[in-house]
């Protein structure tokens, strides 16, 4: 196979022909709106991938337009011809990753993050514990005041205030791995903890398990599970993503469980796409299909179980920012709204453009900080108009990003960002 043929296969060149260049994706693309050129639109990117496949531009020319894509997939929902933009995007990222010579520093940082931190629940736990120590000891305040954290790479400092108070190491280590409901057993589910969720939003994970338990589900938390691989796929590291997918498929015993439940829109999306990682007809492809069929968002399972009554009215005005990957990849959009409607007293003011990404997009906000903030500002204009006292989300990245947004607009005294699950726990859930 010639180099160009190999590249065409890698970037899914053939799939670019599904695009009829009608431009219907332009009005829904956040980066087209904020970066104001066709180069940063889905139609432009698809065309550029095609040009790379024809040798008319180089992979280096492709780098900037591809890396500035959020991967929010809003274009795939609106696309009249079902272009598989996700496959084209990830293929292009893989090609860039393979051909690129990165600076030593960037490569080391990325290697550390992708090979060590995200796949390791131990590392994420340790990070969580470090965050806890840091908060409890008063270091946080000091660091914020002295701008100590602003010296760290990848703009991490800007997100540091958005991280919640952390539970202590003891609390983490005490989590049970099989939780049974008090009354009737209605189904058995496995809980996918997610690495960022479990490392940084441990309490939300505990709340998720509790809501399932109260709804009558037995919950198992497989110890061997690992990162879903979404961030790796988005960065073009398909080999690592494949490895992680295999480890997860081995960790979950599908015979025993009805669903694999998660509470992170991005992780859920990746896991429903596991079959894309493997060649059709192979053993792992088949296994991935079985696995992805069982993946569900917590909101879907709670709606299906329909086992909760919310006893505490919550007199608040909220708005809801759906996770893009939940809407456009998992195609789940109704269940969170159905649950919110069950809470008495809650006033939901829908956003004008809920499907417009918040700019979090995995680690996009870390590596493309300025672009991400421009998108967040558009989102916050929409949020501000609704005057909510809470923004509800269903994904850790969105949650952190919305907190940053609230802080950027100086509304931290008037508004907070919350995971749907935490709000539901506040509403006094009891078994029906």
């Amino acid at each position: 196979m010639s180099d160009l043929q190999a590249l065409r296969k890698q970037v899914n060149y053939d799939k670019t022909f599904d695009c009829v260049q009608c431009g219907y994706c332009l009005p829904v693309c956040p980066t087209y709106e904020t970066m104001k050129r066709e180069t940063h639109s889905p139609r432009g990117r698809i065309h550029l991938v095609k040009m790379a496949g024809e040798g008319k531009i180089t992979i280096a020319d492709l780098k900037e337009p591809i890396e500035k894509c959020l991967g929010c997939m809003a274009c795939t929902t609106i696309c009249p011809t079902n272009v598989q933009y996700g496959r084209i995007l990830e293929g292009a990222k893989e090609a860039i990753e393979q051909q690129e010579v990165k600076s030593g520093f960037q490569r080391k940082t990325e290697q550390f993050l992708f090979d060590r931190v995200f796949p390791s629940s131990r590392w994420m736990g340790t990070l969580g514990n470090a965050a806890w120590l840091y908060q409890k000891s008063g270091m946080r305040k000091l660091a914020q005041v002295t701008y100590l954290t602003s010296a760290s790479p990848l703009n991490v400092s800007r997100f540091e205030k958005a991280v919640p108070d952390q539970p202590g190491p003891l609390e983490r280590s005490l989590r049970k791995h099989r939780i049974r409901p008090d009354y009737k057993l209605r189904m058995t589910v496995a809980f996918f903890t997610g690495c960022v969720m479990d490392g940084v939003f441990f309490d939300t994970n505990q709340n998720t398990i509790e809501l399932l338990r109260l709804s009558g589900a037995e919950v198992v938390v497989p110890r061997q599970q690992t990162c879903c691989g979404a961030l790796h796929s988005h960065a073009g590291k398909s080999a690592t993503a494949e490895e992680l997918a295999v480890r997860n498929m081995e960790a979950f015993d599908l015979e025993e469980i009805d669903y694999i439940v998660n509470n992170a829109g991005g992780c859920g999306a990746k896991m429903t796409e596991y079959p894309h990682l493997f060649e059709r007809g192979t053993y792992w492809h088949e296994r991935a299909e079985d696995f992805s069929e069982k993946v569900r968002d917590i909101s879907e399972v709670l709606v299906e179980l329909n086992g909760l009554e919310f006893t505490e009215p919550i007199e608040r005005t909220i708005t809801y920012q759906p996770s893009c990957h939940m809407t456009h990849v998992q195609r789940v959009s109704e269940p969170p709204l159905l649950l919110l409607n069950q809470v008495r007293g809650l006033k939901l003011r829908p956003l004008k453009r809920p499907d417009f990404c918040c700019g979090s997009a995995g680690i996009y906000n870390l590596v493309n900080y300025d672009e991400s903030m421009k998108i967040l500002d558009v989102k916050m204009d929409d949020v501000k108009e609704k005057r909510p006292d809470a923004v509800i989300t269903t994904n850790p990245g969105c949650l952190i990003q919305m907190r940053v947004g609230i802080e950027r607009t100086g509304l931290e005294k008037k508004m907070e960002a919350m995971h749907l699950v935490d709000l539901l726990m506040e509403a006094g859930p009891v078994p029906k």
Partner: protein
Amino acid sequence: MKNWIDELKRVLTPKQVLTELADRHSYSFDASFGEYLPEAVVQVKNKYEVASVLKAANEFHFPVYPRGKGTCLSGGPLPVHGGVVLDLSQWPEQIKVRPEDLTVVVSPSALPANINQAAEEYGLMYAPDPSSAHVATIGGNLAENSGGPRGLKYGVTKDFVLGLEIVTPEGEITWTGGKTIKNVTGFDLTKLIVGSEGTLAVITEATLKLLPKPPAVQTMMVSFKDVRSAGEAVSKTLTSGILPSKMEFMDQACIRAVENFQPAGLPIDAEAILIIELDGHPEGIAAELEIVEKIMIDLGASETIVPGNPEEAARIWHARKQVSPAIAQIKPTKVSEDATVPRSKIPDMMESLQAIKEKYKVEIFVFGHAGDGNLHPNILCDKRDQEEMARVESAVEEIMLAAIKLGGTLSGEHGIGTLKAPFMEAAIGKVGLDMMKRMKESWDPNNILNPGKIFPGQVQRLVLRNE
């Protein structure tokens, strides 16, 4: 000698002039065929910037290709001779409704859907409704004289333009027409500019006419066992004293494609269906509905469906909108034609299309705006298959000639651009074409604006293959 790209960066700001290879390729295409790499893309935001670019172009002799959102189906914004793509889509959107005059003043970047929405706040409407109204710019709609289903009753873009502010090819800012409904002051330059496909001027502002929004609409869907009866039903309706707002046609191939793609409950055994919309006062349309239904039944309609609520009606229109995506699933390349014939000739045109389909063994799907004779025969093919594309080229050529023979024309609403230029002489005659050329030469002596469009070049036949 001064470099013209540097000159553009000097008269504008450097960040308005895009020269990176990725940016240039991103403006090398539209929704039709072919790709042509410009040397620069210039993003302008006011008329003075447009004037500066055109003055520089006349000094340095580089071509300028105005572009809205690049949704054109005939190659209008393609930079076929390189030079500059003039991107007007990032111009700040302005829509100023003047309800007491029933007019609206818009910037070239305004979206037709937004214009209509702004008008609706005053109980008014902007009638032209091309299917890309939520994406395309009004500038592009004006340049191409876009149509849409409602064209049947209300007319097309040109029927809604009272005045324009333009920059001439030599970089002079001026205006045409005015703000009044009646206006016979000199040549009607407004109508000349509208539909000139960006070859005579860059439109920088437009004053458009609005109409009162009809208070009610009623949809009906009618199935026919043969195409000829469907065509006759259109003529009969239009001569019965009733003017529906839309009369859309789908052939059996389209019906089946939609049902395979996203089942909508369309009658798959029907040879053709008509989707009709009446608008006006509720009492009026109730009476009209009865008359239309009777006409349909008299002409042998096998089924008429009258949706009882807006949701059901929306489902029918959604099915009509699914035709394009549904047929695009069949093969990757869609050659979308819009040859238009006098309304009475629709059945004859349908027969010609059937014959062409068999002769060249190509997949033709026919749908479109039957009420105004504007059909959209779409040929589904694969542009990587050279042999097939050669057959498609011949089929398209014959479709054009068939339309002309029936007293019709090359394009109802997509424009001539690059694709249909070879057929211009056949359509409008030697003298007519020569008069048009002379006008172009006097407006644009240095051939700056959108060269390579409308007028046939060396290539005298349709070419869809680019390798």
